[in-house]
């Protein structure tokens, strides 16, 4: 097992009654959603912010990760006095459906057998969509008694969930902040995901998806998938600045050893990733992002996804992001205009690529904080 040490039950979670019927038609009889919260819900239950994590993120937004021991992935943005101020807002982040940090996913025991000790779902876990992920989150909000979220915020795949929230539950979202994302995956996005998936399939430890039964993990394949993906998260400028053509050690012209610094960096990214992520989850979630097409869910017109919306939107992109370029965000902003929605749209100048939304970008943080402050005023939240 590549995710040792932390049993699923160790994650804060709730077993939601009634299961969940997925877009693919399958009903999950057991729906567990793992989550973290920060700050306090006010008496009116009006100050809740849902943060949606990215493809390989998880619910540990602003506290120590139980597996890696590292700081939360958005500590810079979420916390007391931070742009998403936990002194003011009650922040929730869930592990997505299909994930591997405690929510129902390929690592969960099958719920469609009568066995007392059912096997894990593995690759038989049903296909999930971004909308399924959002439905699972909505169930948790209902469980918590939160009828309307003050804001839903997320970057990358998290941004897709934000769009889906605003479209599927418009009454339940006062403000929406889709960051560095798109309303559908381009052929290029799908292509990069497919390289990652094929790398996993090609690993001899994959065993046709039955790697658990063999006590093995397709580590190499998953690491290569992560390496390819990681390249798409960075800009050429960022890679050049970090590594250039610098060579490690003095072994000139070694054929295949660790030679260029960028190589060993990527290998490190790959090998540390497999210690915290599951291959079947990676397949499930990348598929969900590929299937996502918000316009198609609404007769081919993106604006129709937001018809008559009252939600206030802030669409944010980064100038050097080539995975979800600004043009994708502009498409979203224009569709929102066509729906006469209240929309702010800003492209943050950064040379850090897609990853910029996770990094120290003062303009981004100022814009996010200001947008939330303005919305709080409109929502009548006490300062």
């Amino acid at each position, binding site marked *: 097992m590549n995710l040792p040490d932390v049993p699923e039950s160790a994650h804060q979670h709730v077993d939601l009654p009634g299961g969940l019927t997925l877009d693919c038609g399958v009903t999950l009889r057991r729906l567990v959603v793992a989550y973290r919260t920060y700050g306090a819900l006010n008496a009116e239950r009006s100050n809740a912010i849902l943060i949606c994590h990215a493809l390989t993120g998880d619910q540990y937004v602003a506290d120590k990760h139980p597996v890696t021991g590292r700081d939360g992935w958005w500590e810079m943005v979420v916390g007391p006095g931070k742009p998403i101020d936990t002194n003011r807002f009650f922040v929730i982040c869930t592990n997505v459906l299909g994930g591997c940090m405690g929510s129902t996913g390929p690592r969960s025991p099958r719920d469609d057998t009568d066995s007392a000790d059912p096997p894990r779902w593995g690759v038989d876990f049903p296909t999930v969509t971004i909308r399924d992920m959002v439905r699972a989150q909505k169930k948790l909000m209902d469980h918590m008694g939160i009828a309307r979220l003050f804001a839903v915020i997320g970057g990358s795949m998290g941004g897709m969930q934000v769009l889906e929230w605003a479209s599927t539950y418009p009454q339940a979202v006062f403000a929406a902040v889709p960051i560095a994302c798109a309303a559908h995956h381009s052929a290029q996005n799908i292509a990069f995901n497919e390289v990652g998936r094929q790398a996993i399939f090609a690993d001899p430890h994959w065993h046709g998806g039955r790697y658990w039964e063999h006590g093995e993990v397709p580590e190499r394949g998953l690491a290569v998938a992560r390496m390819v993906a990681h390249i798409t998260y960075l800009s050429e400028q960022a890679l050049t600045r970090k590594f250039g053509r610098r060579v490690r050690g003095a072994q000139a012209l070694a054929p295949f050893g660790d030679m260029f610094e960028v190589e060993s960096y990527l290998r490190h990214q790959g090998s540390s990733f497999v210690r915290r992520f599951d291959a079947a989850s990676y397949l499930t979630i990348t598929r969900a992002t590929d299937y996502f097409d918000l316009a198609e869910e609404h007769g081919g017109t993106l604006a129709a996804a937001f018809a008559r919306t009252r939600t*206030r939107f802030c669409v944010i992109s980064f100038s050097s992001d080539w995975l979800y370029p600004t043009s994708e965000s502009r498409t979203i902003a224009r569709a929102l205009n*066509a729906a006469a929605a209240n*929309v*702010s*749209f800003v*492209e943050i*100048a950064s040379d850090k690529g897609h990853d910029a939304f996770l990094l120290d970008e003062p*303009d981004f943080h100022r814009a996010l904080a200001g*947008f939330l402050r303005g919305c709080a005023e409109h929502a009548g939240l006490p300062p």
Partner: protein
Amino acid sequence: MTVPLDPVRFVAKNMRLDLTLIAAMIEPGTRVLDIGCGDGELIDHLFRTRGCDARGIEIDMAEVTRAVAHGLPVMHGDADNDLSQYPDGAFDYVVLSRTLQAVERPREVLRQMLRIGERAIVSFPNFGHWLVRWQLLRSGRMPMTSVWDRPWHETPNIHPCTIRDFFALCESEGYAVEKWLAVDEAGRRAPWRRFSGLANVFGEQGLFQLRKA
């Protein structure tokens, strides 16, 4: 004018005078789109003092960032490319201040403004001002004044017009001029309100409120 109570806000005392004149044309509680809104001074003012649902479009990304960081609904975009998406009649007023002369297709921009908005409020520097005429006549070179302050090869003002030109355009496009006035560079109202010929000589800027006739 009501002075907002919140002292950190940047609009209160220093708002450009022509924006004050524009704000005075706008009915409280209406929906407003300000094209070329800069850091959002006017829309903030309209929200705070008139309860308007005011939004902005701005081409300069640094200004957009500043506006959004102030909590204002501003999006990056420009008059030539970002009006066609809006549905018909989405706004009560669409404002274009000191920008008409810099857009690529002024006539199309006006058409879009009056498609998506009930009324258009437009201000522009008047190329018919006596100083501009005098400079061209005397020196035979492109005029440089405090309003037209960039050399011809650097100016973003690719479609200058005069107040009379604008009246003529409104007539040919079938727009009713509901209000108009000439103002000086600081935005102070000039006394030529009844005489467009005088305004065209002495007004540094024209300010118009239009609707479809």
